[in-house]
């Protein structure tokens, strides 16, 4: 048939690489990403809020970080397992990560409050990375997730987001857009699959 076959007998790494080297086409250019073609001059806060709502989350506008706890308590008045990494909110915490034996023990976590440094208007995604995340499973295992973000941290699209992240070394990071969801049963949208059942984003003025 067409194509080149027949592996040369080597360890698989070398034979795979040799086959690819032999079969690949001549080098093609790597295009530059020109950001101007994507600029849509939409209002960042308005667009971000709209997109977070589309993906099933809620946005709350706060005058300052000092209001975070008050707003969290208004949303979740009766929760017993709480954790926050926001400065000045440690009184809210009912669990201690230092005492944590294994991440599995977070299974009862009700509310988690995390800070973020990048939010993306075009898709409502908020970046959470290991630098702000003492235990990786936290934003997934919690029942309710609150993400706190300065308005000035909003960027129009993912190209800008990766520019902002460039050079920041993260062992792990995740864009979170809305609460976890599925539509695997007859295409009916159900909020709350394996991850958080609700997502609130606090935008700080």
């Amino acid at each position, binding site marked *: 048939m067409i194509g080149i076959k027949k592996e040369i007998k080597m360890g698989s790494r070398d034979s795979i690489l040799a086959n690819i*080297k032999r079969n690949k086409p001549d080098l093609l*250019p790597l295009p530059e990403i020109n950001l101007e073609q994507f600029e849509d001059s939409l209002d960042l806060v308005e667009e971000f809020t709209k997109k977070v709502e589309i993906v099933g989350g809620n946005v709350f506008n706060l005058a300052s970080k000092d209001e975070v706890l008050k707003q969290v308590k208004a949303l979740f008045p009766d929760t017993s397992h709480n954790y926050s990494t926001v400065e000045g909110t440690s009184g809210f915490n009912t669990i201690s990560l230092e005492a944590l034996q294994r991440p*599995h023990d977070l299974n009862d976590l009700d509310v988690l409050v995390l800070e973020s440094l990048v939010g993306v208007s*075009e898709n409502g995604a908020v970046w959470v990375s290991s630098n702000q995340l003492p235990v990786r499973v936290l934003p997934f295992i919690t029942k309710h997730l609150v993400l706190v973000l300065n308005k000035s941290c909003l960027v129009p699209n993912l190209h800008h987001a990766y520019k902002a992240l460039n050079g920041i070394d993260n062992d792990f990071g995740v864009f979170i*857009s809305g609460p*976890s969801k*599925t539509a695997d049963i007859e*295409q009916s949208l159900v909020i709350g699959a*394996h*991850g958080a059942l609700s997502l609130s984003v606090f935008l700080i003025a």
Partner: protein
Amino acid sequence: MEHSVAASIFNKNEAKVNWHDKALWFVRHKRDLSVHTVKGWEQLRELGSAIKAHTLSNLDNYLVEFEENALKNGVQVHWAANGEEHNRIVHSILKAHQAKKVVKSKSMLTEECHLNPYLEVDNIEVIDTDLGERIVQLAKEPPSHIVLPAIHKNKEEVDELFQEHLGTKPCNGDPQYLTNEARKHLREKFIEADAAITGVNFAIAETGGLVVCTNEGNADMGAHLAPVHIACMGVEKLIPKQEHLGVFLRLLARSATGQPITTYSSHFKKPREGAKMHIVIVDNGRAEQLSRPDFRASLHCIRCGACMNTCPIYRRSGGHSYNATIPGPIGSILSPGKDLKKYSSLPFASTLCGSCSDVCPVKIDIHKQLYKWRQIITKETPQPAMKKMSMKFMGRMFSNPKQYQKIGRAGRWALRNLPKGLINARPNVWGKERDLPKGPKESFDDWYKKRNKNGK
């Protein structure tokens, strides 16, 4: 089984086919609404295509760069020439960790390699944790769609499956209740798991990191709890730099479901403290596909499923009718490269309408490749006598205009005057399941000449 035969089985339940058809078209519609709000969408597709083409043209070097950086990150890297070697590697990692309970998030590659049955032989429990995949796993079926694995099942069937396997109460297929029960059932599995396996959406040469996209959060629940995370990827998942994620993550979810991005786009780079991370890089026929100039662009695919949702054949024949790991238009250009004989009917499961190519986020010329596979298959695999005869006959007819006109006239007359029973008689497969239109009195040629004569 040929695609057309398997499709006719799916078509026995007309109501279900109609639902399937409409549900997928609705997803295609959501895709349209979503992409039309993105300024520069076509340029974005161009970029996606060009970045993938460049990466493939330098793939060996990018793989080496990726490996080097992944090793620096403290991740172990393995290479598998084929599915068998991939399974052996995954099995040996699990054995080294004495892992008996494994949670797996969606990975079409592990489906392609038939990893689950391989591990189950050694009494390793593998739980598919994506809800749709869990549903088809309980039903002992393969996924019928790469993004919507259980799209062929109705909620009543899911209800029954869950009653049988998870002990749920009858609920008339209430999706909220069933999803909640699945959440509880799978939460237990996440907590108990000795190891987590995930697929890979993108692997970044520059950082040695990889990105996994889910809506449910199942990849993360698995990988961040289990002591060992094994990520399995085909060689074509590479992209050069982190900034290129901006292009592909903008394209992927919009093309797949119309969402602006998946709920979670998780960037794994280093293992978490006290845990291990392995990456298995798999060829399994991809280097060979790379050698075929006409077909290598099929390796651009980012597995969004848009070509399936839009395909008039896929929507009406169901994913299982393709009898291949990747169904639909993209599967029909990938599969013949693996086994030309076994998959010889797939490139014919198309109207060549080109809708797949129009929606493809990385601009794979899918319908052109389907046509090219047809040329090869017709030459290299035996064709039915009836088809060979009619092709020869048509070849002669089309090469002789006078004869073509004569036969056209006779055909139009027949379609106007002969009884339906005769027109739809068995040799005419076009008359199966449908009535042919009434033959017009004049041909296009007659009409065109008349129109010209009547002044312009």
